[in-house]
């Protein structure tokens, strides 16, 4: 395979494609509402109306507007049908011959779409994720070729550094710096790990990327491999994402067949193979050292850093670990240059970020927005606000993040601003809460999560989360006193400062942030100690 051949595949594919493309979402969310039935009926209808020469039906990845799914979109007319049911498929096709389509015609110019800047999700919902040719037709694997033939590994690292890209998995560590560290490490054997263990409840960006455009991630991994001198990559995906796994498997096979993965990629001396590792249900494995333990076949117990994986990671070799979304940004940066990328976003947070906008919000789904956009723009303009009642708070960062109150909706969404208000970017879950949501209840919900997901290795996280959960329950049962609240705050700080890994260090965040902004809700639940009541009432203390 050389560049000519790659472009030939692209040309053939473009020639093969029909003028009218009916995109039917086949992602997990829409499948739950029988998207596959719609897909089948659309194909049958095209056949029935003898439109095969002009129209093709494509099963695509996520279009983003999951709350109104299943979605069907027609190019080039840019018609968007929402909440389609299988029976309506025929009418959609008939509408092309002048009929009237039954399903709701959505507004593709709605701010939900119009306000997005699509870098990672540029082709999500536009191409068939199960055919590499469609990816190649939109310029796929050209970045890999460019990196190998027009750039030195050091130049690739420099571009990534200059782009200002930061890790999209939560921490926001500068990606270029990570790459540079691994590139500089001595040793012949290095590894790339793509972290697809998206475990934050309420977040599904990575699933969507893997389901919609798997080659984007595979190509990003290969470029990373070239840049840091690794020839073996692992992609660790949650078992809860079977469709993503299937599409990755297919993608790897197809790329291997074309010589885009494997030995001597583009007839160069660069080899790169990718293996899939499937998680087995452990949130803590999103933590990089735990993930490495898991790939090595062990319990997902984090280990103290340093040494960082960049020095001593998988099988004790220098290892680059990046999140799915981070790696999905790479091809665009190589294609368009670091300066182009750095022009999007803010001073310290470059580029775009995908958020899963969910909870009590009118338009829920996936959005990709430039960093620096305010929460208000996301929630009110794009999300259309809360269906009934008022926005109370927006939770970002999942179990590691915090709740940002309504009064702070003008906070720009970037790594530093979110941290300043006591939350964090996290992987991109954004859950909107309305007046009816109890913030103490939310804090308890997240603590229940952390209590269930702690690996149990270190004391503060294993036992602290249990105690914190019990304290929150006591408050909710109206049995806690002012002393209990003070004790809980002290324990939050202790767990945050002494836990071994990120899970424990951030587990108290939802409590601390709700205490900071919604303390009155906690205080309203407190009671006077019983002995002051003057009578010994029977008590039902429980741990």
């Amino acid at each position, binding site marked *: 395979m050389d560049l000519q051949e790659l472009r030939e595949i692209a040309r053939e594919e473009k020639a093969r494609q029909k003028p009218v493309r009916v995109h039917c979402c086949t992602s*997990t969310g829409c499948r*739950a509402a029988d998207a596959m039935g719609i897909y089948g009926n659309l194909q049958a209808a095209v056949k029935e109306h003898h439109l095969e020469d002009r129209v093709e039906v494509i099963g695509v990845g996520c279009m983003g507007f999951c709350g109104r799914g299943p979605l069907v979109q027609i190019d080039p007319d840019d018609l968007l049908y929402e909440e389609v049911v299988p029976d309506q498929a025929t009418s959609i096709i008939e509408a092309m011959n002048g009929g009237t389509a039954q399903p709701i015609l959505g507004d593709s110019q709605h701010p939900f779409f119009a306000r997005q800047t699509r870098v990672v999700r540029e082709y999500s919902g536009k191409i068939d994720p199960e055919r590499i040719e469609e990816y190649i037709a939109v310029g796929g694997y050209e970045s890999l070729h460019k990196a190998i033939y027009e750039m030195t590994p050091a130049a690739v690292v420099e571009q990534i550094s200059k782009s200002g890209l930061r890790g999209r998995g939560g921490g926001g560590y500068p990606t270029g710096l990570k790459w540079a560290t691994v590139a500089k490490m001595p040793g012949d054997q290095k590894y790339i790990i793509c972290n697809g263990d998206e475990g934050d*409840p*309420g*977040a599904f960006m990575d699933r969507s990327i893997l389901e919609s455009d798997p080659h984007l991630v595979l190509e990003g991994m290969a470029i990373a491999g070239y840049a840091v001198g690794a020839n073996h990559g692992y992609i660790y995906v949650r078992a809860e994402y079977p469709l993503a796994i299937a599409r990755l498997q297919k993608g790897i096979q197809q790329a291997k067949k074309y010589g885009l993965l494997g030995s001597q990629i583009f007839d160069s001396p660069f080899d790169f193979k990718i293996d899939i590792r499937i998680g087995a*249900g452990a949130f803590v494995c999103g933590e990089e050292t735990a993930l490495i333990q898991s*790939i090595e076949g062990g319990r997902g117990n984090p280990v103290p850093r340093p040494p960082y994986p960049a020095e001593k990671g998988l099988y004790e070799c220098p290892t680059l670990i990046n999140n799915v979304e981070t790696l999905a940004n790479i091809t665009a940066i190589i294609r368009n240059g670091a300066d182009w990328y750095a022009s999007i976003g803010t001073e310290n947070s470059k580029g775009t970020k995908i958020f899963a906008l*969910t909870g009590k919000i009118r338009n829920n789904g996936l959005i990709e927005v430039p960093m620096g956009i305010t929460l208000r723009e996301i929630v009110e303009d794009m999300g259309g606000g809360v269906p009934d009642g008022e926005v109370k708070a927006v939770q970002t960062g999942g179990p590691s993040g915090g709740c940002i109150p309504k009064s702070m909706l003008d906070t720009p969404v970037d790594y530093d601003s979110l941290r300043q208000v006591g939350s964090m970017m996290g992987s991109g879950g954004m859950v*909107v809460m309305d007046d009816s949501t109890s913030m103490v209840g939310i804090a308890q*919900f997240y603590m229940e999560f952390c209590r269930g997901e702690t690996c149990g290795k270190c004391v503060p996280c294993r036992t602290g989360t249990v105690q914190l959960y019990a304290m929150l329950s006591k408050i909710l049962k109206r049995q806690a006193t002012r002393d209990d609240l003070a004790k809980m705050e002290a324990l939050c700080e202790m767990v945050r400062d002494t836990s071994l890994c990120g899970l424990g260090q951030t587990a108290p965040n939802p409590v601390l942030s709700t205490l900071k902004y919604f303390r009155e809700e906690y205080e309203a639940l407190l009671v006077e100690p019983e002995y002051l009541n003057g009578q010994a009432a029977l008590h039902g203390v429980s741990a």
Partner: protein
Amino acid sequence: MSPTAIPSTVESATPAVKEKSAKPDLRFKRLDITMKRHQYQPDALIEVLHVAQEAFGFLEEDVLDYVAHGLKLPLSKVYGVATFYHLFSLKPSGAHTCVVCMGTACYVKGGDKVLEKLQEELGIELGETTPDGKVSLMAARCLGACGIAPAVVFDGTVGGKLTPEEAVAKVKIWAGES
């Protein structure tokens, strides 16, 4: 789960393995193929357990024992790994499974109420199977199907935007089966 030692573990493990040598069990064959594909490397443990779980439905002690022998791993290590991950089950599950998503989006939209109602209807707690062995009730941390919250997976099929009553109706169909 509290530490419980089952005295019969070893005895119960051995006959199954022996039986296997007498009459080849295709499921063990699958394990062999998987282990061979990974060159019997100990780091393939989780991959092999995935296959074992799929082939046997749950991880019986004789299966764990078999895997430990194949990959040359200590028994306690295999047990430790098998019990660390939520997706591996050491108990057989019911004929039907009902997995309630307890992700944040589902929680905010009433996933907790759905779960409560299901527990009430089935008379079991989370992680348990009805006494007749028909339905296992489980929770998922997040299915990543937040757009259609609250979501429940009925035997592998995702149902979205469910009310507690709708969820119970789905389960009742199973209960009626004989």
